[in-house]
């Protein structure tokens, strides 16, 4: 069943020092290239998502206001900070910097976005998504948007698990997961 080389610090029996989330046995089935690919893709998504919002804070503030979730006083602050947070996060994911923090935050943010989208779907509020573009009617939030966010969230979960199981923490090349980098520090 286990054709891959055995990892010394990633025991099959749940969380341990090198694998605090206990996901190493599962991760072993996801090819490292895919794990890195998912991280790069997610980084690209965050970078792309931040671009238009950084250029048009006023329109993004309007989108946040339309969600009717944050108190009015927090709308503009969020509109100014969130796009930069997304772009920093995207950069971290792309270059493999601060991965434990970046991946955990990515999962956290996607969960919050999903919650906000689902909440407004549930109460029937018709809002622009404001996810990738701040412009106009093109981006109405709907079930497709929810599905897309769930997809990103799953990717983010894989990437987070990889970063938290010691061997995935560096920006290191694909091969690092197969050998010497596995020794417990």
């Amino acid at each position, binding site marked *: 069943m286990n054709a891959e080389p055995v990892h010394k610090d990633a025991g099959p029996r749940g969380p341990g020092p090198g694998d*605090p989330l206990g996901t190493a046995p599962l991760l072993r089935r996801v090819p490292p290239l895919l794990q890195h690919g998912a991280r790069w893709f997610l980084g690209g998504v965050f970078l792309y998502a931040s671009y238009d919002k950084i250029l048009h804070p006023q329109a993004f503030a309007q989108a946040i206001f*339309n969600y009717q979730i944050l108190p009015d006083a927090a709308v503009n602050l969020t509109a100014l*900070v969130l796009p930069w947070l997304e*772009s920093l996060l995207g950069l971290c994911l792309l270059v493999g910097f601060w991965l434990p923090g970046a991946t955990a935050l990515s999962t956290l943010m996607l969960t919050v976005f999903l919650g906000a989208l689902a909440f407004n779907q549930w109460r029937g509020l018709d809002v622009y998504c404001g996810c990738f573009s701040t412009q106009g009617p093109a981006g109405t939030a709907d079930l497709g948007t929810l599905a897309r966010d769930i997809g990103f969230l799953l990717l983010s979960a894989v990437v987070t698990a990889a970063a*938290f199981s010691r061997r995935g923490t560096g920006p290191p090349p694909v091969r690092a997961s197969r050998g010497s980098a596995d020794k417990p520090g």
Partner: protein
Amino acid sequence: MAFMFRNQANPWWQALWQIPAVICLAAAIGLAANQWRPDPLALPGDWSAGTRLGDAAGAGLAISLEEARRLYADGAAVFLDARPATQYAQGHIRGALGLPWQEVDRYFVDVAEKLDPTKPVITYCDGAACELSRDLALFLREMGFADTRVLVNGWSVWREAELPVEKSAD
């Protein structure tokens, strides 16, 4: 659990300081960038209904329910439903025309033929924060329907006042 705090290479420990660090960095950049913009956002912003419903010239767009009701009773105004067509079909102000803002290009020509530029137009959607009616009203003003107003949270207040509504015949 003790290992988590003993070992600084522990990913939990790293995440614990990296997350606040990246948030602080984003806040610093975001706020600084805002200062350099020619049109910085105010902090905190003013999102009250009165401010939001002004047009570029600062003229108020909102119409009170009382006034809207009077115009309705006299048949003096045309009501436009700015919500998506599906919601219009499920119920709208009786006699109102559907002009979904999200598909305004598709519907505008048909609806415009039925409008009288000399008569007031009243747009509405649902929810106090709904912007569809406002966007539609600004668009109509640009298109020459100068007397266009917004009934804020129109669908809800109209039903609460138990004024006439209807569903679309399929």
